[in-house]
């Protein structure tokens, strides 16, 4: 059984000594996050892979629209030393281009296609990154960008049901409001209505 605290220390020493880390965050004993420069991501992921972080668990993007930046999050996992490492990096939002990491983790192909489809980030090096993966015949801007308005898109493309303003009592039932109020009055006369 490996010592999990030492694993986190091991990762911190490994990464912080060799790379320019903008921000380190130890989330818990199984997760560490490093924010590095865009140019260092490939070297860092390749070294982590040779140290045992062989599983590419996830790649996602975050749209920080106020900073005019996208953040890419690569999550890798090691089965010998149980620590998830999040490698974060920032991209310019106006020209989001990131070299593909397919030479290091070939399974990243579909995550990169997904990130391109939903955020419009380009991944040169991935031969299929521009192909549609999930959305079919999409005709608008990438939908998970924060400046996309899903409600406006929905209103423009899908008709919504219209309801009449007035309602009529077709069954001819009498109103139950008076009945309910008299019942509540009786309850409060007898006790406290369940209140303390």
């Amino acid at each position, binding site marked *: 059984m490996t010592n999990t605290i030492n694993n986190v220390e091991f990762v911190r020493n490994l990464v912080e000594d060799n790379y320019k880390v903008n921000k380190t965050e130890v989330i818990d004993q199984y997760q560490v996050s490093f924010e590095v420069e865009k140019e260092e991501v490939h070297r860092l992921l390749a070294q982590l892979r040779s140290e045992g972080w062989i599983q590419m668990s996830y790649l996602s993007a975050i749209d920080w629209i106020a900073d005019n930046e996208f953040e890419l999050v690569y999550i890798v996992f090691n089965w010998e030393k149980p620590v998830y490492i999040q490698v974060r990096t920032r991209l310019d939002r106006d020209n989001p281009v990131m070299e593909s990491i397919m030479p290091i983790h070939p399974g990243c192909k579909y995550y990169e296609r997904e990130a391109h489809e939903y955020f419009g980030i380009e991944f040169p090096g991935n031969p299929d990154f521009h*192909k*549609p993966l*999930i*959305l*079919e*015949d999409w*005709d*608008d801007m990438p*939908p998970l960008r924060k400046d*996309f308005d*899903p*409600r406006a*898109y*929905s209103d423009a*493309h*899908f*008709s*919504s*049901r219209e309801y009449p303003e007035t309602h009529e009592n077709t069954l001819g039932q009498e109103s139950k409001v008076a009945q309910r109020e008299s019942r509540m009055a009786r309850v409060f006369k007898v006790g406290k209505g369940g209140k303390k």
Partner: protein
Amino acid sequence: MESTKFSPITKLSKEEVDRKWWEIGDFFRRNSLWMLMYCTGCCAIELPPAMTSAYDMERLGMGPMATPRQADVLLVTGYLSLKTLRRVIYTYEQMSEPKYIVGFGSCTINGGIYHDSHVVINQLDQYIPVDTYVAGCMPNTEAVMNGFIDLMSLIKNKKADGWKRYKENYEWYKKNQIDSLGEVQVHDEYHQ
């Protein structure tokens, strides 16, 4: 020469004969409904209790069917994205007539909690004809069973005529499908 012993057989018109045969057919059809379950929405979780011993829909004569060509009822259980709507239209057009649709949950009625989503359609009956709805988010199993009994009484009263409406208003349905989907035909890299 006319018989004096027996009263003459009244000749029924063709429409009358057709009507009688349809009534006989509807009787057997509504007591033996085979369903095709399009379970991509969360309302599908209400079908296991409805099918198994808790509510046992086989006592109504309903059973699951594997292929659309042999099924009578299409159950659309919940929200439909643009991608699944294309497949539902494929499936519906493959079914043999007469065919019925039951829409589950508020998503098929007005979009439900996905009313402002960029991929989920709001009204199912704009694209394919729906015979009866089961309202709720999600509907409980009693409501589901009640919806099936509603469908049976609709068939009995000749009101479950969605497949006829689809044929009569085919252009209108097609136009709505094209307006929202762009193209109904599925194009993706796995089918080419």
